[in-house]
């Protein structure tokens, strides 16, 4: 059984297994319900040839990336602030623990009002999906900076501002990284909701709109695209963390709590 433990053999078997299960499902339910691998590939090729799939992937990626990057940029300083200032934390914590149960999709109307039907409202929805995860991870990170580090810096003459800059932020980096990486997953999850509104392109649009014409093969193409986009960017980001942030204690493995 040692060959089973070899990674490539496992992966190969996995894919054979997945494809077989998929084909079986397709045969069982009929192609309009579950399109088989072949139909899906055909649908994908069709969308690829007329250029819409690459365009959709590009535009969804742009939205996910913008919302996620902006959300993280806002959430990190906020998280540090909430973590450092007790008064603000007493304000913010119950509010955060209330809002975090409200799904991004519920804000569609509100965001339309605020940000219009253009890119901004979609990016804002992704931003919202990102914000709390990054903020709460950063907050936890700030709260778990060892008191010894802060004391050491202080008795070496660091000002409060220097402590934030040179101790709190670098020490919190792994938490920020985890938060930002988890938020990336959530952003991909939110793209369908974001592109449900006022949108004529994007992978989420493809998934949602194909339902109207019952092009289940396109739905599958969309789903697989989302999964792949998420998988690839997550790996890239993990690799980036490992390479660039390793000295801050960032490890590149999969974050658990998506």
């Amino acid at each position, binding site marked *: 059984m040692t060959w089973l433990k070899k990674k490539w053999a496992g992966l190969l078997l996995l894919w054979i297994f997945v494809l077989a299960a998929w084909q079986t499902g397709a045969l069982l339910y009929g192609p*309009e*319900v579950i399109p088989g691998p072949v139909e899906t590939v055909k649908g994908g090729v069709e969308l690829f040839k007329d250029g819409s799939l690459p365009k959709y992937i590009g535009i969804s990626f742009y939205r996910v990336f913008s919302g996620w990057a902006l959300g993280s940029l806002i959430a990190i300083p906020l998280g540090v602030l909430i973590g450092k200032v007790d008064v603000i934390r007493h304000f913010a914590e119950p509010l955060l623990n209330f809002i975090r149960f409200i799904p991004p999709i519920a804000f*569609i*109307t509100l965001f*339309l*009002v605020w940000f*219009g*039907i*253009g890119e901004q409202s979609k990016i804002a929805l992704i931003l919202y999906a990102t914000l709390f995860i990054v903020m709460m991870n950063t907050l936890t990170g700030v709260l778990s900076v060892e008191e010894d580090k802060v004391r050491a810096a202080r008795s070496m003459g660091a000002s409060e501002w220097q402590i934030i800059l040179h101790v709190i932020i670098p020490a919190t980096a792994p938490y920020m990284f985890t938060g930002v990486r988890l938020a990336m997953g959530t952003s991909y999850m939110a793209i369908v909701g974001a592109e*449900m*509104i*006022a*949108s*004529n392109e994007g992978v989420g649009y493809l998934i*949602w*709109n194909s*339902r*109207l*014409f*019952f092009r289940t093969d396109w739905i599958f193409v969309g789903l697989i695209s989302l999964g792949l986009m998420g998988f690839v960017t997550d790996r890239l980001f993990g690799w980036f963390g490992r390479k660039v942030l390793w000295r801050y204690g960032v490890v590149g493995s999969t974050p658990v709590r998506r």
Partner: protein
Amino acid sequence: GCGSSPDSTSSKARAAENGESAGTTETASEKAEKVKLNIADISSNPVLRVAANQGIFEKHGIEAKLVTFATPAEGINSLFIKQADIAWGADFPILNAVSKGEYAIIASTGNSTDLSAKQWKLYVRNEIERPEDLAGKNLSFLRGTFISYLWDEYLSEYGLEPENVKFIGQGGFDEAYIALKKGEVDAVWVTGAAMVDKFEALEGAHQLTDMSQTKVRIGSQIIAPESLIADKPDVVANFLDALDESSRFVKENPEKVADILYKEVKQPKEATLKDLSVINWNVEFTDSALDSLSRQKQYMVENGIIQQDFELRDKIKLDPLRTVFPDRVTAAP
């Protein structure tokens, strides 16, 4: 046409007139097990909900389960996944469905009238005073609906090319409302009392026209799997009969219907009452229905929305309708 219906003949009397086939259905429904039907609906349509709520389906031997979807189009899609036995909707999604599978139109709900067309209103930003002003503007359409077809017809009437405007696809009227309010779209087709009220109150926008001023008449049709029509024509006929009874109840008891809709789907009463004043569900199949279907099919085929052309007459099965309302089938496809 709108004048031909509804007549006051009760369905029972009519069933008796029509001889033994309807008669046996009647007795069968009283003795035998009720037939279960899943019916796709949307929350703002009163006819099916009243039929279920008032026991009209039950009376006709049908144990109905209403499955609520956001749009008729989604309801029609649920036929494909065998989660509904009967669905209804506008020509556009209906044609899309019959082009793809073993489904057929069993009746029209008789909406292709001037009165019903009047309920589709075009709201535009104030700077647009004449249809010609739409050139170069952003026009809203709801994805998966006939509105793109409506725009096509409307624009060509005024000599505007689709290339000269920008179409913005949207997911709902609320979205269109906000977009119009903010000036991100310049023109929106809208229907439904609740929504029309909102658009009417919108500063910076006004109603330019309504659909009755255009050549477009949309029909609304009822669709069922061909297997159901072939295997249980009597059930289908009973269903249509129940629908007719319900549509008459709806017209006669607007207050009661508004209560039912508020109670069951939380549609505000005022909105229901306004809608009811113009509602026009007539179970029939007329030339105008056939006409609107053929024209829209042509549009859909030309625009690649329907990928495989088909013979429309093969997809219209009116035998059950004829058994209960023979005089309401005025078109012969």
